[in-house]
């Protein structure tokens, strides 16, 4: 994020219009939010349709998609849409997700993390180590799902692969989906757990206190940036 706090829409302007007192901070632009939620909706649909085909007990979920054959038809296209949408999102977010020494230190304090003892944690940048690991898990899982998904896409591609490759891909596809679903459950819970996160991804902004508490290094970076970019007469 090279240009925090500068947006075009109403909410974004409000976020920066704070002459004396620091108001809210823009964390996700409207574009980022839209992109995130396209990925999220695709994930939910792909997961539900995939689970319908994974376990007999969940086959009833195929009713949500118009029955078994429609589930089979739609699932791979939903998956492709998710990969494409995530590609845009991932490229934009990749630079914020590099693991740094302080992230490894943060991970060693996992006990403090889960017990809300944030005062004992090293400072966190735009994303904490947990969020970064989620990012990498998604990148790896989606890559795996894409490659194996093409192999087991019977209508168009399976006939080009030997049966042994199709079999291995079936297992790996299920495995990647399993890891991804567990990762996203953690991701969703973390958003509920850390109050203000859902607001950040739905309305775009966070309070200064939120940024200070959860992402202090990022907060400091924004303050420095804002101070530097502010006209001298202010």
């Amino acid at each position, binding site marked *: 994020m090279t240009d925090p706090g500068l947006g075009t829409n109403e909410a974004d302007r409000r976020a920066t219009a704070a002459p004396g007192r620091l108001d809210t901070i823009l964390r996700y632009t409207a574009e980022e939010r839209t992109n995130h939620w396209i990925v999220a909706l695709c994930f939910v649909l792909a997961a539900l349709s995939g689970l319908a085909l994974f376990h007999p007990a969940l*086959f009833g979920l195929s009713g949500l998609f118009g029955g078994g054959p429609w589930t089979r038809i739609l699932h791979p296209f939903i998956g492709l849409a998710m990969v494409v949408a995530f590609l845009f999102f991932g490229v934009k977010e990749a630079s914020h997700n590099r693991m740094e020494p302080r992230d490894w230190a943060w991970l060693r304090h996992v006990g403090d993390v889960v017990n809300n003892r944030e005062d004992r944690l090293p400072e966190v940048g735009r994303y904490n180590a947990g969020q970064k690991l989620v990012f990498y898990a998604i990148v790896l899982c989606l890559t795996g799902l894409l490659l194996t998904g093409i192999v087991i896409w019977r209508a168009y591609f399976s006939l080009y692969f030997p049966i042994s490759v199709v079999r291995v891909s079936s297992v790996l596809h299920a495995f990647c989906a399993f890891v991804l679903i*567990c990762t996203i459950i953690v991701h969703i819970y973390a958003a509920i*757990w850390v109050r203000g996160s859902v607001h950040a991804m739905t309305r775009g902004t966070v309070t200064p206190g939120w940024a*200070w508490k959860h992402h202090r290094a990022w907060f400091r970076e924004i303050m420095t940036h804002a101070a530097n970019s502010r006209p001298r007469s202010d």
Partner: protein
Amino acid sequence: MALQSLDIIRRSATTLPSPEIREPTGGQDVAKLIDTTKCIGCKACQVACMEWNDLRDEIGTNVGQYQNPHDLSDSSWTLMRFAEVENPKGDLEWLIRKDGCMHCADPGCLKACPSPGAIVQYSNGIVDFHEENCIGCGYCVTGCPFDIPRISKKDHKAYKCTLCSDRVAVGLEPACIKSCPTGALVFGTKDDMKQHAAERIEDLKSRGFENAGLYDPAGVGGTHVMYVLHHADQAPLYSGLPQDPHISPNVRLWKGVSKPAALAVMAFTALAGFFHYIRVGPDETDASDEAAAQEMARKQEKAP
């Protein structure tokens, strides 16, 4: 196919047992015995199969051998495979094998199928596809150790030999059996077929085929279509018939323990979140955090 009056003992994508209180007295295991040593490759069985099942495959092209069509398809459920093999003595052997569904006792297709009731196994051992429940995913192709099911390009449903379950249900033998002019195809209870095969094998051995034997592979729990082979020790000579077929370990893993285990871990992950919320609670930002933020912002303002 759907029209059937046979008891179902196993159903795809179904976790609970099928109704099993009836013990049909006539419901013994049936089997088709294909004696490759008697087969002359006339393809009467292929024609009978087409006729009985109302199947008309597209006219193919001649590729310089007798095998026609070239492969099994959604509308060719059985096929004579012709293999020309030079034996160690330098003689040519023409090994003709009627290919088609083997009706495994432990069917890989049924194990892999995600759609409830799209694949069933009757109490007499026949494995049948119920196309109205088929979703066209092709998992049966992935699961089959014999490369038998074919997905139709027309309706995206899976098709294969039914062992004429509709005929067998009313006491008739499969259409292919009816048509065989040499007696290479016989049908009856599995026990009878094994006994018949034993006699044939004894005869073959007495005539110099010391490796003659019955193909009823244990890896898939035995099959309800069995072969008498002159070279039972070299099954792959017969156009790639697997020597020791079994459901692939990958399919077993995918369709076995991983299903309940993965669901359990996913549910556990969600539960862990729920109870974390109950025990530890949300991580909230309060007025003191806001004050600290304003304080830091003011310092930063003065700093540059």
